[in-house]
């Protein structure tokens, strides 16, 4: 699974750095280094609803540290069957 975190100007201002860190932490905590490739991405074109991420081909918007656990559960762990 490939996860891209948008680091365009407006997502950055809405907290891309913290979202990327949260993903890094979650990947490490769950020992998913072999299953997930994590990367930053230039603008994903969803500037109004940042922070945006792309999981494989699906774009998920509106991430914040509050919504992160939910996105991690439903969009990452579940599809991986974990």
């Amino acid at each position, binding site marked *: 699974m490939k996860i*891209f975190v948008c*680091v*365009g*100007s*407006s997502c*950055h*201002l809405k907290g*891309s*750095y913290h979202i*990327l860190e949260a993903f890094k932490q979650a990947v490490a905590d769950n020992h998913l280094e072999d299953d997930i490739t*994590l*990367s*930053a*991405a*230039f*603008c994903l074109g969803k*500037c*109004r609803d940042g922070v945006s991420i792309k999981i494989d081909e699906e774009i998920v918007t509106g991430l914040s540290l509050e919504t992160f656990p939910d996105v991690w559960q439903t969009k990452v762990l579940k599809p991986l069957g974990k």
Partner: protein
Amino acid sequence: MTSLFADIGHRSLNKYGEQICGDHVQIHTMKDGSPVVVLADGLGSGIKANILSTLTSQIMSTMLANNLPLEVCLETMVKTLPICEVRGIAYSTFTVIRLLQNEEAEILQYDNPHVILLRNGRHVEFPKEKLEIDGKIVYKSRLYIHENDVFIMLSDGAIHAGIGCELNYGWQRDNIIEFVQNMYIAGFTAKTLATIVTDQCNKLYGFKPGDDTTACVIRMRRRKAVHLMIGPPSDPASDELLMEEFMSGPGKKVVCGGTTAEIAARYLDKEIVPVSDYLDPEIPPIASIEGIDLVTEGILTVNRCLVYAKSYLEDNAHYSTWAYKKDGASMLSRILFEDATDIHFFVGKAVNPAHQNPDLPIDFSIKMRLVEQLSDTLKEMGKRVTVRYY
């Protein structure tokens, strides 16, 4: 004018406890573009010295830039300067370097430490003619300029550094020559060299300079162009034209902005390769596109670069950050401050819908203002700047 570029940078330390510096550096440009650089050191310290040195450097640079003979300049200076009540004399020492067409240097020295010339990193002495004008001894030299020549002008605060603390006789000219020869690295800018020399003086003074201390450096280098593109054109039909003009000609190519990077990638038919991580939590990570030397985020990166640029013109306090770090703003700063002598901005005027969000502290006018301010500060560094809008 030759293909050489005069990179000029200076930095001063105030005498400990003084609010204002008694040394003054003035750079004046002659009609043909040749720079005239004057370093003056006013008698005493504080306001009085500052007035003397400011007047001296202004008079000398303005008159010499207009090709008036040295005798007339000196006479005007002596008659204009206010006379010190304590000492009964009007006095400011000075060093003048006139770069004629950037081909020849004319150097006039009056009572300042003699100019140090490094040629390809090695110190060379140059002939000086001794002139006596109104009882004042002025040394005059004229020499051909070579690429990589570095001229270092100093006020006597530099050679007195360390007296009474670290060194018995101060940091003598020979010691300074040895120091700068060891420091000479072709990539250091004039401002950086001036910063390194004055930092060393400050250290020798135990961070309490006993006198106003100034180093002014002129570094002759080959011209180098950089093209910087920021923002998509207001009409997408102009993408092609913008890219053609941006990619044409020699020089490094820099792309700032996510959408702008997409336009570049599409034109070059290459992928935007994202880089994985934040090196500075405040600066969005860079990316790369084959054929482009640097790809960064737009407005935030440029904004930080502007902060560094302003600091460069003042005390250069952020030098230790931008000179080494690998985040987008630092890399952009190195390209603009160190590599480039000629910078061409290609600015797209499209309004980014994302920036119109009232929740965000950025908008279109900020981008335009950023470009204007950055181009102004780069001009102040002595660089040639052009800005084209699309």
